[in-house]
């Protein structure tokens, strides 16, 4: 092998893999712009003409609820979840990483153990609780648990990060008379920004993509998230409405794509160091 092929071969292999990998995304974008007659008949990705009306149909939404409303609902839930997770997980993590208290070991052990607990074990009783409280078909079951640090993964992530921070700053703040809250708020929290950003981005994307919990708790079409609406769109329409359906699909993944484009450095770094999954 001469040096030229040696240098270019890995790049070629990587590019071919990448094209294959990104094909479904290209297919999604292309199909969202295809006229109905072309969807089923042509293998070509490029539409013969751009059928923008797919998007205007999609914008009308599902069951009379416009896409703007659906996106707003998704945004509300994801935003609430981000706020809740960042706040409650950083509070708990600070206690586990920095404060001494008698129950620290057993509580931390329990927290780590819940990392492995399948959600399904607590799913039905949680549903019963929210049902008794009259909160089914509201957003509370989707947002409230995040304010109670129920996602052990993020508590663990922030604990690991805080443990890596130098103690000197916090100690000198203590000596200067800062209490635990001041120290947490003014010193530790700003220093933990990378871990908190990772938590925020992943919480947003996971909540946005979530389907199971939303399906269980939400019934009224006007409360639907974009994910739920997409699914009922499928139930309503046959394959002839492929174009509008995939236009709506594009709209629903757009926020994730934007998040990814803006934060990809944080995302990939956060994953590599903490083992977070996509």
């Amino acid at each position: 092998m001469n040096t030229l092929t040696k240098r270019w071969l890995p790049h070629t292999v990587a590019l071919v893999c990448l094209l294959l990998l990104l094909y479904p995304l290209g297919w999604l974008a292309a199909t969202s712009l295809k006229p109905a007659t072309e969807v089923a008949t042509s293998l070509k990705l490029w539409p013969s003409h751009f059928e923008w009306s797919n998007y205007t149909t999609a914008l009308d939404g599902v069951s009379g609820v416009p896409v703007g409303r659906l996106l707003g609902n998704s945004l509300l839930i994801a935003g609430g979840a981000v706020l809740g997770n960042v706040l409650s997980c950083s509070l708990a993590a600070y206690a586990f990483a920095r404060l001494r208290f008698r129950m620290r070991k057993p509580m931390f052990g329990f927290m780590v153990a819940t990392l492995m607990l399948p959600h399904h074990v607590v799913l039905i009783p949680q549903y019963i609780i929210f049902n008794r409280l009259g909160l089914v078909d509201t957003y509370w079951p989707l947002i409230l648990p995040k304010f109670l640090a129920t996602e052990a993964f993020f508590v663990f992530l922030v604990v690991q990060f805080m443990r890596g921070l130098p103690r000197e700053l916090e100690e000198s703040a203590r000596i200067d008379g800062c209490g635990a809250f001041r120290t947490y708020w003014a010193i530790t929290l700003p220093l933990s920004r990378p871990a908190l950003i990772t938590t925020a981005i992943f919480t947003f994307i996971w909540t946005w993509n979530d389907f199971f919990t939303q399906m269980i708790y939400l019934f009224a079409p006007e409360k639907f998230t974009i994910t739920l609406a997409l699914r009922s769109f499928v139930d309503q329409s046959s394959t002839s409405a492929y174009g509008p359906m995939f236009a709506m699909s594009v709209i629903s993944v757009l926020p994730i794509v934007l998040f990814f484009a803006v934060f990809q450095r944080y995302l990939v770094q956060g994953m590599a160091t903490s083992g977070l999954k996509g």
Partner: protein
Amino acid sequence: MSVLTTRPPDRTAGPPAPRKGRARRRREQQWPAYVFLSPWMIGAVALTLVPMAVSLYLSFTDYNLFDPPHWVGLRNYTEMLTEDPRYWRSVGTTLLYVVVAVPLKLGLALGVAMLLRNLGRGRAFYRSAFYAPSLLGASMSIALVWRALFNDGGTVARVLDAVGIHTGGWVGNPDYAVFAVVLLTVWQFGAPMVIFLAGLQQISPDLYEAAALDGAGRWRQFLSVTVPMLSPVVFFNLVLETIQSFQVFTPAFAISGGDGGPADSTLFYTLYLYERGFTASHMGYAAAMAWMLLLAIGAVTLILFRTSRSWVFYADEEDR
């Protein structure tokens, strides 16, 4: 207990008064911690511990959410294990999926990570691009794309036809439908790949140089340096992917149209659990299924940890 009561009074501890003061000071130091932890503690008790106990109780009852639970003992468990072929179908489908998808995904992730490691320029770009499907793949949108690609007349069937392999649409075929879900998971190999890549970068180049000096070829270097040095990362990815795979839901729901079809071939465990609990209102049965899932995941994780002693190599082992 007996040690405490029979121990003679500690003479070195000094007079009792300062001890009391120290105890109070320790309490004073402790309360902020519990304030910080209070949201987590409320969540742990109200949304985890109590629900776990309730779910265990419900698993021994017949419960439809409206009437009070009716104690049936082990009935749910015996019905599940001995009288419900759909239960075993869902176990089989899920196991098949885990056993096929996890090794394929991790193999691909490691392969591409090795490839990217050797790329100087553009590595950051490739890393991000390969990672993108891991974020998008969990969405309903991509699950729908998958259904269209693997449907009758979809791209996959046509491309395979063109090379002389006639499979028809995978989504409607009980023999193939589950593999459409497998491929959707494998497609998201970017997440473990990024972790592999980080692990590969931790391996000191000195080790490869030393191996090369000893006359080790590329394959030998891979087996004797890369594999042992990377084994903790392989183990980490293996445990994580396995636990996650047992709980797959959205793609199965979307590709099967929500009912695990055709012919229950995509009736994944969680899909059946959802159907029993929320569609058929057999909450007790679903709770029993959830506990079997917990047991299965616990058992598999335990086995992985036990066997890991023989193949996971920690570089600092001698120091321990």
